[in-house]
């Protein structure tokens, strides 16, 4: 059991470092509060976006926290992919450049699993293979439109 945990931890840790470096241009790693007794310890995410000095997770900005959390989710996925991922506006704190980087990362991860992402941001819509439009006219039901993606006008 300890062996299996160690193997999982090492793999996810390595994934986290690689993915965090790509998304936040910094270095990050996973740390157990008690290496000797993993089943009794907590897991901390240590992350230095853009090479900033050590900081507590809580003092990070909204955008930095989002990229750190997403790096961890992708790190788990690379180790044990689920068949589908459903994300609802995970890009809401991100500036334009980070939405671009995240959408490229999702497009890449989507070769291993299905991604269904709700988003209002242009770079995310433009990177998707396919877009589903949803609308609701006054007093009516929700309508769904399937759109083959070409460069469409969308909200910013």
């Amino acid at each position, binding site marked *: 059991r300890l062996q299996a945990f160690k193997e999982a931890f090492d793999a996810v840790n390595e994934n986290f470092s690689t993915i965090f470096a790509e998304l936040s241009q910094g270095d990050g790693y996973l740390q157990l509060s008690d290496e000797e007794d993993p089943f009794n310890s907590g897991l901390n*995410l240590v992350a230095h976006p853009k090479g900033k000095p050590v900081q507590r997770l809580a003092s990070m900005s909204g955008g930095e926290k989002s990229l750190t959390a*997403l790096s961890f989710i992708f790190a788990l996925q690379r180790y044990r992919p689920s068949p589908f991922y459903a*994300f609802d506006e995970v890009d*809401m704190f991100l500036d334009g450049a980070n939405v671009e980087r995240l959408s490229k990362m999702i497009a890449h991860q989507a070769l291993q699993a299905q991604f269904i992402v709700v988003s209002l941001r242009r770079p995310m819509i433009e990177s*998707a293979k396919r877009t589903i439009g949803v609308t*609701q006219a006054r007093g009516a039901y929700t309508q769904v439109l399937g759109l083959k993606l070409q460069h469409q006008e969308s909200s910013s």
Partner: protein
Amino acid sequence: VHIKEIELSNFKSFGGTTRIPLMPEFTVVSGPNGSGKSNILDALLFCLGIASSKGMRAERLPDLVNHNQTNRKSTVETSVTVTFDLGSEFPPSHPNNDNNGNGSQPEEESDPSLEWRVTRRLRVTKTGSYTSNYYLNGEAVTLTELHEKLNELRIYPEGYNVVLQGDVTSIISMNPRERREIIDELA
């Protein structure tokens, strides 16, 4: 494995029956505020039994039935069906002929036995009492049986593959022990 289609009947802002075909790889759902985007994800969680009513922004389960229905008949009903395509390999086995992976000829003829259809039906009586049932390929199953089956596809109730609106930084604010338990599950 991927989700091939979600079918919603009288679920939240969806009246009547709406079918949403889905492709493997990367799909974005977009549209104006309040148009029903998050309701599609709520339908997914409802059907697979992986969220409480609170997670679907409803006070009680009966709130999930489309409002327009509740004024009419004695018993009202909402149901959601999620169809999984077990046949498609992930990643597509021949990356060089990407056209095929995108749903052209071979996919159309996918063998029905390589599909799983999960359905959840909620019936609400006039008095407000309700019954909720799960079906897998037409046969009634309990929630526990459904979760056992879903585990085979690596779909876990507390899985980190679904992130609800506003929750993206919740992994950061959770307690470190819970975070470590996520790795335990995978091991």
